[in-house]
């Protein structure tokens, strides 16, 4: 028969059933779990938008042909890509189909009585026989006593009695708990992903932040999160404290970061104070506020050729590395006659080895802060409506200002200093402030995955460590012809997880049992 005709004979219903059965087999679930692991790999090698958007931008610049192709495959947001979600959903479905029907099986197994003895003990991994003068009932009672923490049934048979014992039911329970916990984790993570939001904002000392979309520099939310419903808290960064190791081998390593804030949970509430530091977020109703970074925001004042103050504000300079060498941009659209743009560096502790040697920064704390800028004039390109990053200068309609030697003009300022600009006007480094990089996030149901993993771990340990064992004792009496009664006892042991110790355990069990019965015997004889 041709397989294709056979396949076509399946009705849609049968086909669906077949698919369901394939999907819900344990093997498929394991396979999907492994597939999920493999699918997670590319996201750890290619930069991810959700983790590090700036690196993604840099990647696009470095690999102009490769990047769009990777982007089409969802490689820059692997963990929210359709194919990753598909694996996740299939896994969840597969686990549901695989576990839910098993719950009742496991539950029944939990309450099950020990099964009846096999007819032939010699096929078991461990068995042994002996005879005793004790009665069948005494054998059964001794057996019952010897099998501690074991579920035991004693059944009368034609020739005597049979003891059925099983221990290790915790293993079933552990199994059940573990598999259900996996589901709990998956559901919890899914809820978290669908209804969460996370955003970051840079707030300069003295400035405030209110929890609305427009105040975020970056914002991501789950597909079901309604970003109009952001909780209405607000805060003010009073002070951003940053301390670094002043000396020793770790000189310059961060020592303490702390943002002192005043917050209101709801508009109109009495403002409260809190000190946010790394590992100690501010927890509010509907979101936690974390301190995830900080940097310098020099206050710059620019007057134009007409003597007007056209710019007077703290400018955030983004740290490039642990030395807090920072980059920033100042845009002055209101300057007359032409718009001005500045771009350059901030160095917290600038040193220069000599006149010709380039200046560099040697310490992240602000010991000798200096900004070095270059200047452009022309059109900032702010009016054509396309949104622009505040951290980059669009230079295509601007020309760089040169000094008398025809070199690009260098402006270098310490706090309090100002410099006259070639076309008239001045630029002044008024003051140095710091900014806090805050992350605001809310992930609902976060205790669900935590509980799932924790309880699941306990279940798993039970199912790994508990060793189920079945023991049977059959006792039958016969007369040996002289009128004395003899009971022959046979014992069989089955470990459901094969173990090497089975014969040794059985040996000692048999010895113990025989000894108990022998003492019974002597105590019976003694009174006479």
């Amino acid at each position, binding site marked *: 028969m041709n397989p294709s005709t056979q396949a076509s004979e399946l009705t849609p219903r049968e086909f669906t059933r077949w698919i369901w059965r394939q999907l819900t087999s344990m093997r498929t679930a394991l396979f999907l779990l492994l597939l999920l692991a493999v699918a997670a790999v590319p996201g750890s090698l290619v930069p991810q938008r959700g983790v590090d958007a700036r690196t993604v931008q840099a990647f696009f610049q470095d690999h102009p042909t490769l990047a769009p192709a990777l982007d089409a495959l969802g490689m820059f947001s692997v963990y929210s890509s359709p194919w990753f979600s598909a694996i996740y959903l299939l896994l969840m479905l597969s686990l549901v189909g695989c576990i839910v029907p098993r719950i009742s099986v496991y539950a029944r197994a939990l309450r099950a009585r020990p099964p009846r003895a096999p007819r032939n003990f010699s096929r078991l991994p461990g068995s042994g026989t002996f005879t005793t003068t004790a009665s069948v009932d005494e054998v059964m009672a001794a057996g019952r006593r010897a099998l501690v923490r074991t579920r035991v049934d004693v059944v009368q048979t034609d020739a005597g009695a049979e003891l059925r014992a099983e221990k290790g039911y915790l293993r079933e329970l552990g199994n059940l708990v573990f598999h259900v916990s996996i589901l709990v984790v998956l559901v919890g993570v899914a809820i978290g992903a669908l209804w969460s939001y996370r955003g970051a904002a840079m707030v300069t000392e003295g400035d405030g932040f209110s929890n609305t979309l427009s105040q975020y520099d970056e914002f991501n939310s789950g597909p079901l999160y309604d970003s109009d419903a952001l909780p209405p808290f607000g805060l003010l960064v009073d002070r951003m404290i940053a301390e670094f190791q002043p000396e020793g081998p770790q000189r310059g390593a961060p020592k303490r970061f702390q943002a002192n804030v005043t917050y209101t949970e709801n508009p109109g509430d009495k403002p409260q104070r809190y000190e946010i530091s790394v590992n100690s*977020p501010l927890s509010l109703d509907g979101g936690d506020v*974390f301190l995830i970074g900080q940097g310098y925001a020099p206050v710059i004042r620019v007057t134009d050729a007409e003597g007007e103050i056209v710019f007077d504000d703290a400018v955030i300079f983004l740290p490039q590395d642990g030395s807090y060498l920072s980059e920033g941009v100042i845009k002055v659209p209101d300057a007359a006659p032409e718009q001005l743009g500045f771009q350059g560096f901030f160095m917290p502790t600038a040193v220069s080895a000599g006149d010709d040697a380039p200046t560099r920064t040697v310490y992240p704390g602000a010991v000798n802060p200096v900004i070095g800028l270059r200047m452009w004039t022309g059109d900032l390109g702010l009016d054509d409506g396309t949104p622009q990053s505040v951290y980059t200068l669009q230079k295509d309609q601007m020309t760089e200002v040169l000094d008398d030697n025809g070199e690009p003009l260098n402006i270098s300022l310490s706090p309090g200093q100002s410099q006259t600009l070639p076309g008239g006007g001045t630029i002044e480094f008024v003051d140095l402030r710091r900014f806090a990089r805050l992350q*605001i996030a809310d*992930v609902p149901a976060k205790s669900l*995955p935590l509980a799932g993993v924790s309880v699941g*771990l306990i279940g*798993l*340990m039970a199912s790994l*460590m508990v060793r189920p064992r079945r023991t049977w004792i059959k006792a039958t009496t016969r007369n040996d012809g002289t009128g004395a009664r003899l009971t022959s006892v046979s014992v069989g042991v089955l470990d459901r997880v094969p173990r090497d110790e089975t014969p040794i355990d059985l040996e000692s069990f048999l010895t113990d049992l025989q000894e108990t019965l022998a003492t019974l015997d002597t105590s019976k004889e003694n009174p006479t």
Partner: protein
Amino acid sequence: MTLEQYAQISNYAMVAATCVLALAFVAHAAEWAFARKVADEEKELVTTGPTPPSPPTEDTTPVTERFSRVGVTLTILAAALLAISVITRGLAAERVPLGNMYEFGLAGVTVALITYLGLVWKYQVQWVGGVVAAFGLVILGMSLSTYVPAGPLVPALDSYWFEIHVSAVMLAGAFFLVGAAASVLYLIRVRAESKDNVGPVLRRFPAAAVMDKLAYRVNAMAFPLWTFGALIAGPIWAHYAWGRYWGWDPKEVWAFITWIVYAGYLHARATAGWKGRRAAYFCLIGFVTFLFSYYGVNLFGSGLHSYAK
């Protein structure tokens, strides 16, 4: 003693321990080489015919035995030196010495060696000594390449989850190392057994089943620790430190992959009775993914773990 002096002692002890461990490896290698030589001599004797057979087995077996004992002794010395290095490092930095990759590797190998020696004491497993020493040297090399001077913690690590998370992960890693060593030897031995070609070196090792069991035991201990360290304590801390409990940061991805591989290993072993070769491969893949999450991620990936920069 000053902090600098403690730091110095720690560095010297680390270098000395690395050298001693290398010698321990050489001793175990010599043990195998001698076992082979003895066998070769025996073979020659047989082929060259009726020369009076000197009794090589009698006086050379003790040689291999002696090398094995020297190997174990040197490993004890290396473990002691490493322990000194870890402790003085902690004294120099005035904190638990687990604050960066260098310290993580150092402490991890220390625990792995102590675990191995404990197993030697209880179950006579000195046959894995050579492979444990080799793995230990590789990891010490990795951590040396990330050396940083002893010093205080960065603020990100100022949390009691620091000790909990890192020590659980490290302990699990140490056990993974011992398990992987047993699996390597298991694979070599089982290959020889299946070809009915158990050479003189391999004959010094216990039967494949014994090695398989050791690997399983150690991994079964490591797995709950790993789960706790990487998938419970890690995410809890990540919530406080970074504002999310799981964010598919490269380190998290690889910790997760490691978890799945070891879960697959245990699952297959416990339920399907999947002993043997396939399980051993799983265990080795798991160890490689663990090493990658420890080391590779720091080399290739950018991430939030503060050393991963």
